[in-house]
């Protein structure tokens, strides 16, 4: 039996965990161009907010050590976002062990990204977008109702587009961003349809109730299963610049499958395998394109094209070229930087392979668990 913990200090910590990156991101986006003290502070607001989120997460983990061990859940209920019976969007956050681990991974990953952005002196808008994406990811992981989950998904698209708009080839930014938004738009439509199918079949959008109804096998369970397939496809059908944007949708799909495991477990194996392979293929295509063909100006893959060309590799190249080799730095400094550039290229390539390997492992695990059931 799961222990649900509901106390004021956890409430405050969970609220801070979601709100702090959001506020930091918005503050960072407000950075002006002039060299003022205010702008210098705002420029680093996103980084500070991510550090604060890390600290809050650490506090939550520390606080959990004082609770009874076991698979406990931290639970915060903020009431309803909006409600017209029977459609209710409740804002309830629930952190169990798995969600906590994922939150930690996301926060640490974003923190590393922000440190890299700060070192490279990247546009504050990109930093702000990354920070707000963190807030959206945390909401996606912690939300207990599918409407906030969908809201988090839908909010990520424009943020990825903003990040894409602010980096890479200036002449193509508009098209790239528009295509990112378009791809995400269709992903959102699929996810929305899936969500409505589940709601239409089961009459609820809350994870626990869905699980309970899935176990009870009502007559409308097939519709709900179909909805789950659509929802998972909608979550996975996304793209963006860089490797993170390529891998994250697939990871999100797997996480959502886990959350809806009682319902997903009813999906016939062949449908599940087709979906996993399709999403895996999409993800691999994203990664391959961002790693091996980072500077192409034409679309080579459907709906990907320029959206993924501003990968990490191109960023490192541009950074090293602009900041070091063209700035007339001291000759001695150049030697380690040449080595650094070489390492960056290797790292990028290796990371691409690692990404592909990771996706392969995820597919294998998904199919294994599915068949194992």
């Amino acid at each position: 039996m799961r222990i649900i913990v509901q106390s004021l200090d956890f409430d405050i910590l969970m609220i801070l965990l979601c709100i702090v990156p959001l506020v930091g991101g918005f503050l960072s986006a407000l950075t002006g161009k002039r060299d003022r003290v205010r702008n210098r502070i705002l420029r680093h607001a996103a980084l500070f907010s991510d550090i604060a989120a890390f600290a809050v997460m650490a506090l939550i983990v520390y606080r959990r050590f004082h609770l009874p061990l076991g698979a406990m859940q931290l639970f915060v209920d903020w009431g309803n976002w909006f409600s017209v019976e029977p459609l209710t969007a409740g804002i309830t956050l629930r952190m169990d062990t798995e969600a906590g681990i994922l939150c930690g991974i996301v926060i640490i990953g974003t923190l590393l990204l922000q440190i890299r952005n700060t070192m490279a002196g990247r546009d504050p808008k990109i930093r702000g977008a990354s920070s707000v994406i963190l807030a959206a990811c945390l909401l996606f992981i912690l939300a207990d109702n599918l409407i906030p989950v969908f809201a988090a998904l839908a909010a990520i698209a424009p943020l990825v587009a903003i990040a894409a708009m602010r980096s890479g080839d200036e002449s193509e930014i508009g098209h790239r961003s528009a295509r990112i938004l378009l791809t995400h738009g269709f992903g959102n439509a699929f996810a929305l349809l899936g969500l409505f199918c589940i709601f239409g079949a089961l009459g609820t959008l809350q994870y626990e109730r869905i699980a309970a109804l899935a176990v009870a096998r009502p007559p409308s369970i097939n519709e709900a299963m179909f909805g789950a397939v659509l929802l998972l496809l909608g979550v996975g059908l996304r793209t963006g610049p860089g490797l993170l944007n390529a891998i994250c949708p697939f990871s999100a799909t797997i996480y959502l499958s886990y959350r809806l495991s009682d319902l997903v477990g009813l999906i016939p194996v062949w449908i599940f395998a087709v979906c996993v392979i399709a999403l895996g293929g999409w993800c691999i295509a994203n990664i391959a394109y961002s790693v091996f063909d980072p500077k192409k100006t034409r679309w080579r893959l459907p709906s990907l094209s320029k959206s993924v060309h501003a990968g990490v590799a191109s960023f490192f190249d541009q950074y090293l070229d602009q900041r070091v080799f063209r700035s007339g730095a001291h000759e001695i400094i150049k030697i380690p930087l040449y080595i650094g550039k070489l390492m960056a290229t290797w790292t990028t390539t290796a990371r691409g392979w690692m990404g592909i390997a990771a996706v392969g492992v995820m597919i294998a695990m998904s199919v294994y668990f599915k068949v194992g059931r």
Partner: protein
Amino acid sequence: MRWLSIITILPLTAGVAAAALSRIRPATGFWVARVFLMVLTGIILWQCFSYQPKFDDPKSLWIIEEPLLISGQWAMIYAPAADGINLLPALSAVVLTTMAFFVSTAGPLSSMLLLLGALSCSLGALFAKDLLLFIIFMESALSLNLFSIALKGRRLFGAVRRAFIMQAVTGAPMLLAVLAIHWKAGGPGFLPADLIEATLEFSPEIQLLLASAYCVTLGSRVPLVPMHGWFMEISDESDPASATTLFALVSLVAIYGFIRFAMPMFPAVSPVFWTLVGAMAALGLTHMGLIAFFRRSPAQILTRARAVVASLAIVGVVSATRPAVAGAVFILSTQGLAFASVCMMLVALDKRGNPPPEIIALKMPRLATMAFIAILGIIGLPGTTGFVGNILTLGGSFRSHPVMAATAALGMATISGSLLTLPWRAFGQKATATTVQTPRLRFEESAPMVAILIIIVALGVFPGVVLSRISPSVDRLCEELRHRRTMARVIEEPVRAVEDPTDSGANKKPPMLLDKAP
């Protein structure tokens, strides 16, 4: 004095006062009109949030039981009534007209006067309980709007003339249907409660015909595909501010007519008919989204996006479930704000010679940011009003009409693509700016945009403020619909049983009256 009467007459009074004052000082007229409209907004806001009005409550302050204009059998009872369903859309109409005045001072003063008259008529239509008065007010609002557009330039004469012809052609069916029902009823007045019994006396085929007549008139003003051509043409031809007011004053009233009059008036008409209307709206929505994708002009893309959102509201209305109808009313009440914001941005850019996108991003970053947020608000970014309206409408309609809702959802994705590419595809297409020198936004240009964006985000984060006013009225309306359908079934079933006593299915619930709503 009755507040609703005052609210209805106030815009016209403002117009007259402004016209009189402008004889003395031309600029004063516009400012007087703006101040009057802001006062009007304040009054409606006070009405909206001070207490919960009920449309059919006889104790309501606003009922005037005196016959207006004509007495006897043809009495038109001016009984302005309000509840959550019409008060918030009325507020939206006033706010959008005010915004149109803030951004556009083009055109002669008579044009402004006509527009204020159109606002008065729209408010009259929204508050009217009498069906004939509703039609008269709605048609007057459209006519005055068209005259107002015609006064802005000779080049618009052709489009306005065609619009007038189409108004007459498409407006006639509903008027004839109402007169036919009134003739059958034989009693005084045109109150829907009196007319509905007469409607049930017609044969099912005639009822279907009457409902179709309603749909033709109201659908052509929403505008629904395939009756949308003339409305789109006049919106494309006119300036963005006029297009905004056209949608805010006419389309809004037509959608309200579907909610208040068309659906409840024909309880015995087959749900299949309403499903067909909804399917038409959903398919039209997708069609309009695709058409918008191939348009280059930002104003044209925006016009189609407005039509898409209006069609989405119709999808919600014909679903007749509580979340869907509440979502449709929420869309009516709030969605125009995002359009107004983008429209104001277009006007501001037009005044600066339509600079290309990179110049907008470089020289006017705040404008670009506001435009981006407003566009995302239209397509339903979480945390804006669009998200709540879309989720409620689509989610509510999915339970009763899944295919229709799915089509509408895909259509919304299509229009999202068009709108998102709008800043890059359309801005700068007709660039007339020769230099990169672009004047900064003036306070009177930026302040309304910022105010609207704050409202959009605030209502997106706390939609309960609006939904709490809408929901009780929507609940009553849906309950009334269900009750009327039940009554129609009770009336119809004994007739069937007598016609065919051996039919074992006679006592079963007729399929056309199956209430799919939860």
